[in-house]
């Protein structure tokens, strides 16, 4: 049957013909054909043996269905197909050289498969299709524009991550900055088309606001789930409700992941700057961590929901510490250029500022008691979680409690709250702060039992 390239073209023509709309009677036929096409791509590229990667035109058609899909089924099916294709035919892969040559000592090589499609490379056409699509949403089977965008966002983060992680691995092994400079994430952040500040603001709103708020209700009361989808959920339409809840949560997770990727990129960038690997080709950008801390200090209402929803303990702790350092002037030498500025500053150091009345009072005056209490509680939780994250070997209690800093920190936290309370009569604790104190007290109590 000729060369593989030719037979691929045959497959392309053949599958794309399914989408041919001549002789189509109604929207149901279009819907059926789209699903049949997606299924055909799955069969050709994933299920059948031997399988071959879809061509760019096929990819574009799948992506177009994903973007223009008029029913939940089309969106979900195309999304799943794209994710599975990405896994099967990655654009980037790591080749472990140590398997072939032991002399390199575990060095990996990055292989970029340039022919592989990516939503960031070949989709000008579908971007155009999107403009057309928004104007004719009235005849769609399902008005779920927001839902579609949520899923799209997840997919794009998925692609960015798939591009970034292997590059990061190679960068760590080789310390060649170019691997990270050429990552999609770095290119996008360096693009002038995006206003990073607004972008980060949006990300933070997504994380802290979520899309769906819920009231408590009785067991049967599904109407009590309030959604932020004006016009979409009028009646308790369960299909949309399940989808929105699930996608809302997944999107929050995806956006958090995106922020962490950017923070990691910034961190590597800092090191590369110091070592002199970066050049003027690298666009100058305010590190994300600084932007987040700024946002939190401008808008104090966001602090609590953002920190509650941001679950990764390591970077959460880092955000909280940086917030404190803005106000603690006696911070250890902390310049933008020094690499270890935050490494030697631990949560313990922060707590020391609150170990006596006067210095506590100064900080409370600067930061307001609500913010101080909130940050201390969240910092404590992030510290605890990062302890568990780092050491999964918690055979027995005694072993854990021998960890002196843990006990010290718990006592420090309780002491800090007492100091804050002493100087500020009538101050109230939020439920979260109470729970923090409960946890600290339990640690102390457990220790005294042994």
């Amino acid at each position, binding site marked *: 049957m000729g060369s593989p390239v030719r037979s691929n073209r045959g497959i392309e023509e053949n599958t794309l013909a399914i989408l041919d709309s001549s002789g189509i009677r109604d929207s149901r036929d279009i819907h059926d054909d789209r699903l049949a096409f997606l299924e055909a791509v799955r069969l050709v590229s*994933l299920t059948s*043996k031997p399988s071959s990667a879809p061509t760019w035109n096929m990819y574009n058609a799948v992506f177009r269905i994903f973007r223009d899909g008029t029913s939940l089924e089309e969106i979900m099916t195309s999304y*799943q197909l794209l994710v599975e294709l990405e896994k099967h035919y990655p654009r980037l892969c790591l080749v472990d050289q140590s398997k072939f040559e032991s002399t390199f000592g575990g060095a990996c090589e990055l292989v970029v498969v340039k022919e592989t499609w990516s939503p960031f490379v070949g989709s000008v056409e579908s971007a155009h299709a999107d403009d057309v699509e928004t104007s004719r949403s009235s005849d769609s089977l399902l008005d779920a524009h927001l839902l579609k965008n949520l899923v799209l966002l997840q997919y794009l983060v998925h692609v960015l991550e798939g591009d970034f992680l292997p590059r990061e691995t190679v960068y760590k092994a080789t310390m060649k900055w170019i691997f990270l400079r050429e990552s999609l994430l770095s290119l996008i952040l360096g693009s002038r088309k995006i206003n990073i500040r607004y972008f980060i603001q949006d990300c933070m709103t997504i994380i802290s606001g979520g899309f769906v708020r819920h009231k408590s209700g009785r067991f049967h009361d599904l109407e009590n789930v309030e959604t932020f989808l004006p016009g979409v959920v009028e009646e308790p339409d369960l299909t949309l409700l399940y989808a929105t809840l699930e996608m809302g949560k997944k999107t929050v997770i995806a956006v958090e992941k995106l922020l962490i990727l950017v923070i990691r990129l910034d961190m590597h960038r800092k090191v590369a700057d110091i070592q002199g690997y970066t050049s003027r080709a690298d666009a100058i950008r305010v590190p994300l961590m600084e932007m987040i801390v700024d946002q939190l200090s401008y808008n104090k209402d966001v602090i609590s929901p953002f920190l509650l929803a941001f679950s990764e303990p390591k970077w959460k702790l880092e955000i909280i510490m940086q917030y404190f350092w803005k106000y603690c002037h006696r911070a250890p030498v902390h310049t933008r250029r020094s690499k270890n500025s935050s490494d030697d500053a631990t949560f313990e150091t922060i707590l020391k500022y609150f170990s006596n009345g006067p210095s506590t009072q100064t900080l409370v005056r600067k930061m307001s008691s609500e913010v101080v209490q909130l940050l201390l509680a969240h910092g404590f*939780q992030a510290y605890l979680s990062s302890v568990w994250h780092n050491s999964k070997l918690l055979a027995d209690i005694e072993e854990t409690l021998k960890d002196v800093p843990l006990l010290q920190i718990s006592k420090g936290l309780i002491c800090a709250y007492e100091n804050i309370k002493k100087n500020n009569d009538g101050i109230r604790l939020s439920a979260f702060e109470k729970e923090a104190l409960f946890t600290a007290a*339990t640690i102390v109590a457990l220790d005294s039992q042994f």
Partner: protein
Amino acid sequence: MDDLDAPLDFESEDALVSSVPVANERKRKKIIGLDDLLSEFYHAGNPVNESKKSSKAKHHDSDEEDNTSKNKEKLLSKFVSECQKQVNDILTEDDIPLWGRRAFGRQRSPPPLDSRALINCKLLQSFTKSKFSSILEMTIDKGEAFLEGLLVDGWLLNLVFLCGSVEDCLASWTFYQGTLHSSKVDVQESGCDFWCSILPTEVEVNKPTVGLTWFPSFAQLKDALEIFGYSHGTLSPSASVDNASEICGPPVNIRCWLKLVATFCKMRNPCPIFSTSEVEELFDIIIWLFLDRQLQGLSFLLSECMLSIITFFTDEEWLMSSEKIATSIASRAPKDLNCFRIVECISGVDERTRGLRSQVSWQILTHSMGNPGANPVGILRSLSSVNVKDKNCDFFKVYIRLVLAENWLASGLPVEEGPAIAEVWSRYLRSLSTQISNTDWRSYAAKVRNRASYLLQSM
């Protein structure tokens, strides 16, 4: 000499000159701005046209004239809508319903859980006994509400890691009240996250990171699903809802149920919670959930759950179980578009799902022909025996069988009879694609022809 403004050879090496072309481009744009003019004209043209129209409309100032034209308009629009209705009726006459089976009927109320044991749990007691409770002026009178707060805000997980074990009463409380039967979405999600974190998820680490002595059993998970209203495919497809206000569908906790099942199936060692036959049953349930249109938005979650169920089995078990699963699905599968949905929800991305997909298609195919256990060539021969030129030929049936056969053969032909099957199959496809005429407007005739020629082309 095609472009005078382009930098000369040596200029391209000079970084300073590289900014020049940009300026030139801008200049050039100003000179040639014909396109701009045109687009501007079109842009500005619209309002002019509109104002002309509106001024024309203003001329109809006599009321009479206005009324007659309005009446005409009404009549016409009525006529058009009637026509459209008739056309629609004609078109939808032979419409095959979309896939979909209700998996859930009425919800039941969950059994009450005794929460008295909760207040006496060690976790809360150790605090109440300590000197801090008085210093912090905190009292824990509402044990359950306080625990709920600890759960949602993520402290409970920290405390449990700290203690190194989960007390039984806490484990069952987080499972029932927290995850499966709480009406608050944040409590559900936190409860679910809690369970997923204390159970080992990686395949290599087969030890729970914290001591757990209470595990839910399969029966308990199934009970929970029945409380959600799950009925094992016994509801009629068009089960009319008698009471409009009655909600038929699972509570949103179904998401957590699925996540829990996925996590439990991943921890096979050292103590599998489920037996293989129970996991086979779980697979069956997942298929029925896939058929519920209300759960479409959860299809990603359902797929994840299915994959983790499939990985539960060892290789030897899988040989037996996959066959059992396929037969059990086929014996109950509806013989309509639902059977496509069943086949398509098996992702086919790895060896096991690929095989299962083929097996399920084969089983449904043979069951639908009332001939389970027949040999492949025989089945294909009896497929070919259908006369598509017959006026009473049921093309919908032909189409379903064709697609099922396609899926059955997609992951490779059976080794023994491979060539024979390939021959009968291609002859069958050729006859379908040539014998059905282009002008056959019967329902699904075109679909059968197109599908057959598609398959023939890609062979």
